[in-house]
């Protein structure tokens, strides 16, 4: 203790000097913007280096956990990747049978772009003309119908979503067989309007709506949705039915494109008849 005091006494001048300089610089950095900024800048650089070193050490320490996580991700992706599935492209095999002629081919596709919040929504698929897609083909998902192919490029296809006010599709009630057309009103992506129904048709909530198959695009019986609300329209002649869509467009990922092998034949015949 005595020697400590002695030390302080001997060097009190230098200690006092250093203390005052520290205090001066403290004031300088605290109250002068330029010095403060450059001090903070350099100290940030120093602390950045320190943090970088520290994080590289802590990263090293957590390597075991990271490896485990990566292994989990790898096994997950391997489990879901195509190579772990038996390639079984039954849908693309053409069956030449004199009784059962294949009319519809299903092609797998992934949605690579999608929207639900616009007035007219479109989807983009990862297959195009090279994979056999053409204009006017129907697109369905395992849950229900999705839309109609509008344009195709070599490797991509643009699809008019069901959530598009310009798209009208012929639909019917599974139970009663009455048909009308479905069209989106642009509001809620979960609901679609089923209109052009005569007012005498009895509709109850919970009825299933399917495609009618009257258009050349969709096969008959593809699920559209379930009736959630029935309204008499203002004129009183038609019913307006609100249908909850079977497909959740917000989490749409995998779809199938339906190729109607008899499309040309049907269209040709229909145009010929209408011209007469």
């Amino acid at each position, binding site marked *: 203790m005595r020697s400590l005091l002695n030390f302080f006494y001997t060097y*009190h*001048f*230098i200690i*006092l*000097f250093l203390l*005052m*300089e520290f*205090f*001066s*610089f*403290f*004031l*300088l*950095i*605290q*109250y*002068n913007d*330029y*010095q403060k900024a*450059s*001090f903070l800048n350099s100290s940030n650089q120093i602390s950045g280096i320190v943090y970088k070193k520290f994080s590289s050490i802590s990263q090293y320490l957590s390597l075991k956990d990271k490896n485990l996580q990566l292994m989990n991700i790898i096994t997950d992706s391997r489990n879901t990747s195509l190579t772990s599935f038996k390639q079984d492209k039954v849908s693309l095999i053409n069956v030449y049978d004199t009784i059962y002629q294949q009319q519809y081919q299903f092609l797998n596709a992934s949605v690579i772009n999608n929207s639900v919040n616009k007035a007219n929504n479109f989807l983009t698929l990862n297959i195009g003309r090279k994979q056999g897609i053409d204009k006017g083909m129907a697109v369905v998902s395992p849950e229900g119908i999705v839309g109609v192919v509008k344009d195709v490029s070599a490797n991509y296809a643009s699809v008019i979503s069901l959530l598009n006010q310009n798209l009208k599709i012929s639909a019917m009630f599974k139970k009663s067989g009455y048909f009308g057309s479905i069209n989106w009103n642009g509001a809620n992506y979960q609901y679609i309007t089923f209109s052009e129904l005569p007012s005498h048709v009895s509709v109850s909530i919970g009825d299933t709506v399917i495609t009618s198959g009257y258009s050349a695009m969709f096969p008959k019986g593809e699920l559209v949705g379930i009736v959630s609300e029935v309204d008499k329209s203002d004129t009183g002649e038609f019913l307006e039915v609100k249908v909850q869509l079977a497909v959740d467009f917000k989490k749409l990922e995998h779809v199938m494109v339906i190729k109607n092998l008899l499309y040309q034949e049907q269209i040709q015949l229909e145009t010929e008849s209408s011209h007469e």
Partner: protein
Amino acid sequence: MSKLLPRYLLLFIILVLLQVWVLNNIQVSGFINPYLYVLFVLLLPFQTPNWLLLFLSFILGLTIDMFCDTLGMHASATVFMGFLRPIVLQVITTRDTYESGTSPSIHLLGFNWFIKYSLILVFSHHLFLFLVEAYNFNAFYLIFWRTLVSTFFTILLIVLSQYIIFRKK
């Protein structure tokens, strides 16, 4: 001691006011700014205890800072100068000890001694001050040049004051 206190207090006030009111507004080509206030530290008696020297230097610098709105800048430079003063006095001493009860002056110790003494301290102070002001070494030659010129003007004023105000009694 009791006689010295009012004299140095008056010197302190006059130097601060002179610096703030007059000299800070004289900026030759926006470059040269004499800092005469350091004269206070230069003229403190030889027998001033070191801690008091540092303390007074700090108070002086801080006072100037308050007026210049540069808190800490002049204080650090003046404390540095106060720290150097005993060392410089020891190095350039002409005799073994300085007479007690006296303070540095041109009449007591001669022109050469006084110039040497004030030149070293003023130059140190100015260099320190300008370096702290710039806060980096990028423009060191500019700072050095500025220090030289300002030191010249400060020394000029100090010597003039020695002949005009602090005349031999």
